[in-house]
């Protein structure tokens, strides 16, 4: 038994401070991203969600270049970008082009920052691919508090958010301030993406935002169940990914570990593909007709 355990959890897994911190932070962001992601998928804003992580990366690169910290850059740029995308693209078709062009502008600047950052060896890789094992322990309480705040906000907004995400027109007619809710949601998304990108890397936050949520929405047609399910799936993928990455230090070819991001994105995609085998329930169909 012990041998199996030590085979699964390589020695020192739970006593390593970095690992414990990574498990905690990874868990926190997976839960928030899963919950916010359900609405991102429902509202068809995956591109915006992904774009924010890229723009957050631009901010982080700029902030590092100016001697600041990555956190401030990630959060401030993704929030500004979220507001811009929301303001510029009202209609869905517009939104695609608007998101693309805002992303072009910000990422253009970001690539310049990142380029200058390359003089700091590894900075672009850190920003793009994340560094869950090296995150600053002093940030943990701040990031956890922010995550809690967002979950509370979502709980408060829950019903109008569901209503306006499922059918904006009806919600508007019933007096829900659809535009305002959309804007607040966009900011929520921005903060959540910024935080996720900081921890697991801008290039991978998209996986945690979209993957668990779309998997959950395949398995249940009730939003109230999809949200905890998505959070759970996200948590599972993240922890399993961290475990595998820790174990992989003994794997070929380089002998210095495979990146966490590879495992997390792989698990997320695998679970999503598996969920597509699940038969789509009849009640969903009946509604769609």
């Amino acid at each position, binding site marked *: 038994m012990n041998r199996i355990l030590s085979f699964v959890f390589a020695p020192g897994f739970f006593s390593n401070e970095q690992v414990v911190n990574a498990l905690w932070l990874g868990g926190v962001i997976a839960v928030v991203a899963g919950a916010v992601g359900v609405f991102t*998928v429902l509202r*068809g*804003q*995956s*591109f915006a*969600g*992904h*774009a924010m992580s*890229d723009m957050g990366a631009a901010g982080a690169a700029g902030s590092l270049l100016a001697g600041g910290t990555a956190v401030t850059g990630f959060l401030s740029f993704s929030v500004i970008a979220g507001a811009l995308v929301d303001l510029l693209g009202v209609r*869905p*078709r517009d939104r*695609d*082009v608007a*998101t*693309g*062009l805002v*992303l*072009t*502008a910000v*990422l*253009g*600047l*970001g*690539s*310049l920052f*990142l*380029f200058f950052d*390359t003089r700091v*060896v*590894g900075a*672009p*890789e850190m920003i*793009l*691919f994340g560094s869950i094992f090296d995150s600053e322990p002093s940030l943990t309480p701040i990031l956890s508090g922010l995550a809690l705040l967002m979950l509370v906000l979502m709980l408060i907004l829950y019903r109008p958010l569901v209503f306006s995400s499922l059918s904006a027109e009806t919600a508007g007619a019933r007096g829900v301030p659809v535009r305002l809710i959309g804007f607040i949601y966009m900011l929520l998304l921005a903060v959540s993406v910024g935080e996720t990108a900081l921890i697991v*890397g801008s*290039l*991978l936050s*998209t*996986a945690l*935002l*979209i*993957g668990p949520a*779309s998997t959950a929405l395949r398995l249940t047609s009730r939003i109230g169940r999809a949200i905890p399910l998505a959070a759970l799936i996200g948590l599972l993928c993240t922890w399993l990914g961290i475990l595998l990455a820790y174990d992989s230090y003994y794997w070929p*070819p*380089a002998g*210095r*570990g*495979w*990146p966490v*991001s*590879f*495992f*997390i*994105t*792989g698990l*997320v*995609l695998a679970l*999503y*593909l598996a969920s*597509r085998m699940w038969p789509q329930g009849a009640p969903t169909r009946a509604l769609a007709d």
Partner: protein
Amino acid sequence: MSSSATGWINWLVSPGIFTYSFMQNAWLSGTIIAIVCGVAGFFTMLRGSAFAAHALPKIGFAGAAGAVWLSVNPLWGLSVFAVGGALGIGWLGKGARRDVIIGLILAFGLGTGALFLSFNNEYAAGAIALLFGQIVGVSTGEVIDTAVLAALCLALLVVLYRPLLFASVAPDNAEARGVSLRSIDIWFLVVIGIATAVTVPIVGALLSFSLLVGPAAAASYLTHRPSHAMMLSVAIALLSLWIGVALAYDTGWPVGFFVATLVVIAYAVARITAQWRVSRLSRVAPAE
């Protein structure tokens, strides 16, 4: 040439910009990719495929990182992953939300890219260069590869032109007339994949999508004929790329930054011009 003229030219552009052979290669492949992206961008804009155009270069980047690890030509890695990603999106896109599929495949592609980067023993400068693009790295052989892939891309677009236009504008009618929306979609994604593969080495994986999104969106505000829009889009892409390459040569900064900035400026100018025209028309109209 008189010496004063040479002085002027040197003031305008740095010496060697047209004479170094690597710069000639950069001009040549830059011109080729601007034409391909201008035309393919027209359909990207029409179909609202900006996310796919953004995702495929990054997926291609993962392939290039793998190619660097295996020491094969990065262009092969780029092409295989970009086209493979396109097929994956097209194949999984049935019966699911398109943006979700793109996001997931993009994330997994990048995860794989991170894996390949970590396999590289030293700091993978070659792969990182592909994120930002570079004008000095284009060999004559690569110009030929670029030209061949670009010709393939344009040939596909010529063949697909009418059903692609039909399916993009009025999908229901096109389907009723016997156009297979699914195969048109997959072929179009393959076109984007190839266009991406040739664009990334110069413009970089982070920003090559700007050439697929910006020029066509700008052109759509200036004309309402498809052929004119395509020509304008190519013209804007060419100008952005040429100026971008020249500025990158002068400053040593990444080409992607200049191209993206120029494309955004072109879009803003086109949109403002269109708005100004509309408001002028509506001011004139009541007087008639």
